[in-house]
């Protein structure tokens, strides 16, 4: 393949060709499929993607047009992204679990003519909204299964497209040369991908990122964390999410590391253990679930083992972070930590699949300080990262050795941050987006006149460390009637660290006091119930159980005590709480696809409950419509109890705030 590797690689296809030359025989991708880790080297991937691109070209994919990519993390879908980019077209990844409604919005908005999809499930979904997608011409699919009787005039398997392209390339040397020309013709400033935001606020917007900016951002962080072609990452987070595209796809192509795709979502945990990545990313929610599971599993251990486990976790809390940060630790501490490493932390990290992790990041939302400290204390080099789709997830990151759990670190290399008058964080960065797709008005809205992007997050630079601190969404930070600042997420996160609590929604803006609605964690509380002979038939029954209420009450009381200790927060202690009768669910629109709570929507949906929280009732009736897994709808109703909490005394000075 005539390609000059030393030329500036400012697009992903160019990087791919470069890697094929530099790291030709090194693994580029692995996929746990059919029981073993199928692997492809960089040169194999380059050859495959070229064939695929040639095939797509013959199907009619044109430069500059959009192609939807729908499905889970699978090599063929990543190759689809690469092949589309190779032709100078723009991939538009869509969340695999998006319902037909969301899917049709994105596909229609992005004007896609082609879609690369994973399987029958996605095809069925698209076909159900086909009338709204008049432009859609052709779908290529990965999994053949169940598609035999489908009308194949609009369907082709990727296998066929690749085979067809390969044959064409072999027969026609000019086609190869043409393809090389196409790769070279794509400029760094051309759009590289369109990522649709998850829509925490209103409908989703298509964020256009260019190749050059993406590559620059990725190059900066690859250098920052010293990632090399010897690293391995597990790609298990949605392919359509900026985090996956940046951390795995972009960094992978820049550094040449190997990206591994799990067998299925169910096996991601065991696949993680098998592959043992050296670079790892997890949103706080995943880390939290993992910790919950750790604690639950340990509950079933024998007394001695449990005692030992908790003793050494204590040791880790005392010394672990300091050892990781390279600070001084007494000899006894070092010895105990060493023993703990042999008995607990080492094996624990190993069973979780973290043994070989060199760099781990968390981002997406604020992480509870205790949760963060836990992973760091057992020796996992977990760091926080702050960003958003518009910034290609690249604004601040914590550098090794300077980690503070309540900050998200200093600005990344070449990023310029400014705090606006109203406390909103503004930035200008190498990775920033070039605009919203087909929406210049919104683009203009999101930018300051001098070219800074508004993040919508409220934050400030910590005086001591100079690191950025994010409190909440700028527009979410409210005020109690007495004027006390009320950051709901801060309170929610504090409660969510309890393994028994899965989700919290806090209210208090323009109210006299703070109240919360709680979702218990069915796994944790269920296992607790089993041990305590609490009989229950459903989530609803368990959530309403008096003993569960008692348990949650102690958690809330502890949270209040901790809030009272901080003079800024002493005024926002929780006065009343209830446990919701159903789990908040993305299918019901209560959570976003990235599992963030949609506070406004929930407030509307559960208005009667919120009213009851503030009018002093002891219980309230509610009935809600729910969507089942198969798409049917139903209604569940319940009588939800409400409990009052004691308020820890405010420190005298607290009133001043």
């Amino acid at each position: 393949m005539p390609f000059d590797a030393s030329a500036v690689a400012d697009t992903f296809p160019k990087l791919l060709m470069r890697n094929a030359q530099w790291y030709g025989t090194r693994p580029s991708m692995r996929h746990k499929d059919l029981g073993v880790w199928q692997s492809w080297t960089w040169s194999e991937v380059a050859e495959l993607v070229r064939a695929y691109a040639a095939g797509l070209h013959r199907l009619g994919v044109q430069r500059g047009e959009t192609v939807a990519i729908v499905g889970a993390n699978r090599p063929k879908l990543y190759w689809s992204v690469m092949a589309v980019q190779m032709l100078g077209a723009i991939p538009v990844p869509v969340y695999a679990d998006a319902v037909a409604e969301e899917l049709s919005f994105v596909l229609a908005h992005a004007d896609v003519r082609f879609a690369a999809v994973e399987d029958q499930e996605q095809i069925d979904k698209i076909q159900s909204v086909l009338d709204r997608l008049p432009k859609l011409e052709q779908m290529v699919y990965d999994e053949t299964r169940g598609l035999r009787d489908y009308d194949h005039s609009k369907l082709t398997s990727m296998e066929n497209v690749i085979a067809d392209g390969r044959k064409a390339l072999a027969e026609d040397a000019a086609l190869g040369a043409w393809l090389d020309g196409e790769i070279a013709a794509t400029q760094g400033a051309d759009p590289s991908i369109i990522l649709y935001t998850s829509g925490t606020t209103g409908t989703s917007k298509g964020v256009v990122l260019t190749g050059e900016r993406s590559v620059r951002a990725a190059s900066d962080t690859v250098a920052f964390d010293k990632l090399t072609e010897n690293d391995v990452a597990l790609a298990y987070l949605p392919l359509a999410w900026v985090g996956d595209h940046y951390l795995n796809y972009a960094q992978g192509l820049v550094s040449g590391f190997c990206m591994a795709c799990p067998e299925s979502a169910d096996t991601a945990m065991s696949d993680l253990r098998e592959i043992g990545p050296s670079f790892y990313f997890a949103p706080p929610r995943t880390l939290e679930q993992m910790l919950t599971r750790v604690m639950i599993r340990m509950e079933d251990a024998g007394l001695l083992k449990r005692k030992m486990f908790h003793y050494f976790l204590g040791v880790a809390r005392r010394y672990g972070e300091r050892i990781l940060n390279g600070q001084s630790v007494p000899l006894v501490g070092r010895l105990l930590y060493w023993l703990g490493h042999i008995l607990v932390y080492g094996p624990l990290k190993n069973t979780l699949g973290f043994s070989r992790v060199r760099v781990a990041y968390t981002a997406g939302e604020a992480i509870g300080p205790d949760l963060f400290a836990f992973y760091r204390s057992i020796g996992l080099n977990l760091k926080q990262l702050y960003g958003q789709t518009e910034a290609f997830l690249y604004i601040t990151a914590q550098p090794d050795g300077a980690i503070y759990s309540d900050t998200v670190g200093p600005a990344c290399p070449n990023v310029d941050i400014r705090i606006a008058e109203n406390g909103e964080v503004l930035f200008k960065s190498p990775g920033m987006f070039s605009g919203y797709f087909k929406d210049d008005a919104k683009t203009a809205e999101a930018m300051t006149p001098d070219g800074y992007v508004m993040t919508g997050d409220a934050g400030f630079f910590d005086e001591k460390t100079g690191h950025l601190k994010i409190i909440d969404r700028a527009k979410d930070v409210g005020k109690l009637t007495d004027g006390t600042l009320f950051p709901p997420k801060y309170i929610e996160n504090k409660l969510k660290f309890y393994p028994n609590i899965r989700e919290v929604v806090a209210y208090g803006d323009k109210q006299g006091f703070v109240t919360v609605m709680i979702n218990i964690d069915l796994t944790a509380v269920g296992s607790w119930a089993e041990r305590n002979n609490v009989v229950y038939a459903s989530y609803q029954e368990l959530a309403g159980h008096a003993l569960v209420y008692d348990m949650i009450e102690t958690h809330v009381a502890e949270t209040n005590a901790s809030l009272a200790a901080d003079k800024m927060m002493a005024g926002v202690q929780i006065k009343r709480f209830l446990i919701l009768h159903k789990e908040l669910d993305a299918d019901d629109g209560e959570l976003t696809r990235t599992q963030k709570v949609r506070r406004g929507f929930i407030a509307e949906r559960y208005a009667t409950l919120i009213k009851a929280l503030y009018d002093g009732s002891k219980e309230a009736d509610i009935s809600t419509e729910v969507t089942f897994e198969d798409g049917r709808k139903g209604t569940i109703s319940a009588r939800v109890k409400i409990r009052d909490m004691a308020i820890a005394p405010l420190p005298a000075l607290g009133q001043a705030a």
Partner: protein
Amino acid sequence: MRVPGGADIATGGVLLAVENVSLAFGGVKAVTDVSFDIRKGEIRAIIGPNGAGKTSMLNIINGFYQPQHGRITFKGETRSKMRPHDAAKGGIARTFQNVALFRGMTSLDNIMAGRTLRMNKNLFWQLLRFGPAMNEEVEHRRRVEEIIDFLKIQEIRRTPVGRLPYGLQKRVELGRALAMEPELLLLDEPMAGMNLEEKEDMSRFILDVNDHFGTTVVLIEHDMGVVMDLSDRVVVLDHGVKIADGTPDEVKRTQAVIDAYLGVAH
């Protein structure tokens, strides 16, 4: 979407014909003078109340019982006597009403065992376990993995089947039968004891097997809804006697069936 009784059925020849078959144990008649045929590529259901002789019929088809009267023609060959393992060689696989897995083995080994007939490397190579024997093992492992993938049982690959819940055991058993790459698949109440969701999954798998591999399926099932949805044609037995035979709709309208079965059970 799939159309029951689609094009394949109309053109498909007869794969297996049962002619005037009778079977009795001691004095007890299990099956009396039953005839019906199974066409290539169809899903054929056998229904009937308890003790109607459905399972006996399957046992006759795959050679576990020898009928006293009548004959069976499979792939154009009429046979008088056949051992179960000849049936297996001829391309007949089956699952059982009460799961008959090898309980001491993992799911993977159970399904691999289904490939036994297709593996032929001799004792010498087996003793060495490299070269031809290993190649054969690997080749068949690949086929088995496709089945595992097909049935979505990846996460229980290494679990001893004895520890699996019932629904999954049934799936593994189906996997073992599929591993034989049969032409004719006999399923004895594949959905017995399953909840709604598991039943839906299993129905999906049966349709997919029929669709994807073109396997002819004979199935015994109690759930009338399932039978009507899945099958192309239905045979109804009652006390060992055939009382109706036809498409689900035809059968549903037959008075004898309504009396003997539908009227009682529903």
